[in-house]
């Protein structure tokens, strides 16, 4: 096989307040090549197809095996991780763009701190008495554990939010990933003790009621997290909570 080149079109932006622009690059093809390797190639020879020397493309990555969530970007119009995007499975030329719903830092690197703030809002943690040795955790049936495990694989990558029509850069919708985490913690025997607090948070502004039920979140989630199921579940829990509030408060 003769070596062919892979053509890439990359949407770049120097800083949060400057205008985006496109540049084209070519890198040599190899077997099982992924987008990360292409970007690394560009670092080693940062020049456009036309031969103009440019600054290397800036992007975020770390684990390169789709568990850290860092290298999320829009590849050929679809939001996904660059490490698992294999060149041979993509249409060419390949286009790379930053995620669309988060503030741009530079090039393909965006600021997703909103997602972490949302985890704070819904108190996505278990309130333990302390770290000292007080013995075993709760006994749990394996099938319940397995249900929680699926939810706990969420790597805060933001694909589900980027694709969601309800989640925009100027509102404060919590979004599917956050609802999934509420479900994860409310399903834990100790986490349950604080479920009211979490439900209050999803019943407020930007909460579960704002979900437009577009269902795209679940289509783009790389971890196959049952997001629509979580949204329905949390919706149900919230309704119950409203009734409880009416009756007892």
């Amino acid at each position, binding site marked *: 096989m003769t070596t062919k080149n892979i053509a890439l079109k990359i949407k770049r932006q120097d800083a949060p307040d400057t205008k985006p622009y496109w540049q084209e690059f070519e890198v040599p093809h190899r077997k*099982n090549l992924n987008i990360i390797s292409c970007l690394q190639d560009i670092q080693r020879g940062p020049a456009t197809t036309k031969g103009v020397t440019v600054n290397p493309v800036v992007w975020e990555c770390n684990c390169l095996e789709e*568990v850290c969530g860092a290298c999320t970007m829009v590849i050929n119009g679809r939001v996904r991780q660059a490490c698992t995007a*294999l060149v041979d499975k993509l249409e060419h030329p390949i286009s790379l763009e930053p995620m669309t719903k988060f503030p741009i830092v530079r090039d393909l690197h965006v600021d997703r701190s909103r997602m*972490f703030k949302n985890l704070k809002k819904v108190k996505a*943690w*278990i309130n333990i008495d302390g*770290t000292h*040795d007080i013995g075993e955790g709760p006994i749990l049936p394996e099938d319940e554990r397995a249900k929680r495990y699926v939810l706990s694989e969420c790597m805060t990558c933001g694909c589900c939010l980027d694709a969601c029509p309800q989640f925009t850069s100027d509102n404060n919708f919590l979004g599917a990933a956050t609802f999934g985490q509420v479900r994860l913690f409310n399903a834990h025997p*100790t986490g349950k003790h604080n479920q009211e607090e979490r439900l209050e948070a999803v019943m407020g502004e930007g909460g579960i009621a704002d979900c437009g039920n577009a269902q795209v979140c679940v289509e783009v989630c790389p971890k196959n997290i049952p997001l629509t199921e979580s949204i329905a579940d949390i919706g149900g829990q919230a309704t119950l909570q409203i009734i409880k509030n009416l009756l007892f408060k």
Partner: protein
Amino acid sequence: MEKRRKNFVVIGGGLAGLACTMKLCEAKAQVTLVSYQAVKRSHSVCAQGGINAAINSKGEGDSPDIHFYDTVKGGDFLANQPLVRDMCFQAPAIIHLMDRLGVAFNRSPEGHLEFRRFGGTLYSRTAFAGATTGQQLLYALDEQVRRYEHDGQVTKLEWHEYLEAVIDHDGVCRGAVLNDLRTGDIFTVGGDAVVLATGGPAQVYGRSTGSTVCTGAAATSAYLQGAKYGNAEFIQIHPTAIPGHDKLRLMSESARGEGGRIWVPKTPGDARPPREIPEAERYFFLEENYPLFGNLVPRDVASREIYDIVFNKKMGVAGESMVYLDLTHQSREFLDNRLGGIIDIYEKFTGDDPREVPMKIFPAVHYSMGGLWTDYQDDGNGLIDHQSPRNQMTSITGLFAAGEADYQYHGGNRLGANSLLSCIYTGLMMGPGLIQYAKNQNKVFENVESQVFEKAVNKWKDRFSKIKSMQGRENPYDLHQELGETMMEHVLIVRENAKLEKALTLIDDIETRFADVRCLDTTHWANPTPSFINQLNAMIHLSRIITLGALQRNEFRGAHYKPDFDLKQPSDFDPHEYVDYMEQKNYDEVPEDTFPDGHMAYMKRFESNNEEWLKTTIAHFDEGKPHISYEPVDTSIVPPRPRKYD
């Protein structure tokens, strides 16, 4: 007057850094937590297989003391024993704590924790959450730290890089110099102590199972400031990874713990698809050579065997540098439940389904047993005094290290699933000692002359502007690749002095060319290039002490294999003979004919080799050069003996 709050700077939000932060917050301290990236994306998320604790839930007779023995034996007796023993005794409480934090550990039919087998032990000792245990553990600690962040006790500085410790005139660490990776601003933060929980240095080898940020630059920077670095030459090569251009992706040892078998076709070059090769024509070399431990021999052993099969026996699959790791005899349901995470990885990156076809794997650089030298205080009973400020302190007062960044716990070779344990253990264990250290100080950082901080900042502002003005011919990323290739070729599984010497020359050459690097990007906003160039400089220094340590250590111990110094253990040797021999020697001369032929001579070789080499390598940077010296190892609990796994 309001009581002054203790104030710490923790660098790194992997398991070790988060565990330490949580423990400090629980003791009412304030913590500034610094990380290159969002802490939730730290390298610890990669860990797949599990975490060890001798809970003995299957009635196999396991105990923390056996866990301790397996660990020091696995590490070829190079680890300080009281620390290892304390870790193994704390392990059950650590797993229960993580379980209480909500980690979705797999459960037994009754609903207790489930355990699986891992390498280097005969017991089911490894707790796991599918095949994403590290991710699950990290998230649980991240959540607890977020809770403290919400309560105002933690200030996170994500997208910040640690450059160096701020050290005052008395040689005491008073804070850290940081680089804001977005604004490019260089500034200091003060603290009662600084903890480096900055992970491992796998990037020194270019491609490895490690993440892209694992450059070891933070620990190396401490070494360049005068901190001792221990056992640098002990680099673990994991036997089973998927070859790749950007990364060598790990296929966890849990694949073998759950029944995975390693084999090659008996006929070299056999081109048939693997499933068409009948069982009788497959060579299960680990099972045949190590009937007792089989596929679960320790990593150093398995990697050497695979290397031998591929390079010496030329039996790699289809003549390539690969062997099969086969899970196809297990049911789909079983594999999805216990190994889903790694099966997905293999499928996503190669397009093949490991439930249907055996995986093709090869060894890869994985873990550094070596790291910053750290201290400890034993309690005189074979455990650790948890209140001691000496615990985990580097040789620079006030600068501590934890997790993969330190050199303790794993000796010459780490056992699978012991690292997640040592990371969480160090983070938690050092908490009370840090508090004690802060209490004992006679001066707090707020009262240290401001010039100390200013000087540190100016040095680094200067350095970064120099880096930005570098306009030579060398591409830093290319040079990094070359450094990695040099290390892979010369300082990997099989080590020969001639090659190691060659590597030193090549590293010198890379260092010379480093001066001619081109800073590809000189802009001011979110520009990763200057940082990378600085990290590359650190990697060059680190590669030198890895190589130098390896060159000088003329023996074969754990992951450090030098065939020229192999003591040639007789194949019918039983390690108990050595215990008998040592005991008899205590009383009397041992007659030559007490043991089978050749055994006595071997034991004498073993004994004198230990006298010469059972010691920790210390690298110390002084006047621009590394100096190697050695320190004794505490083997007061289990006397060293030959390792054997068949």
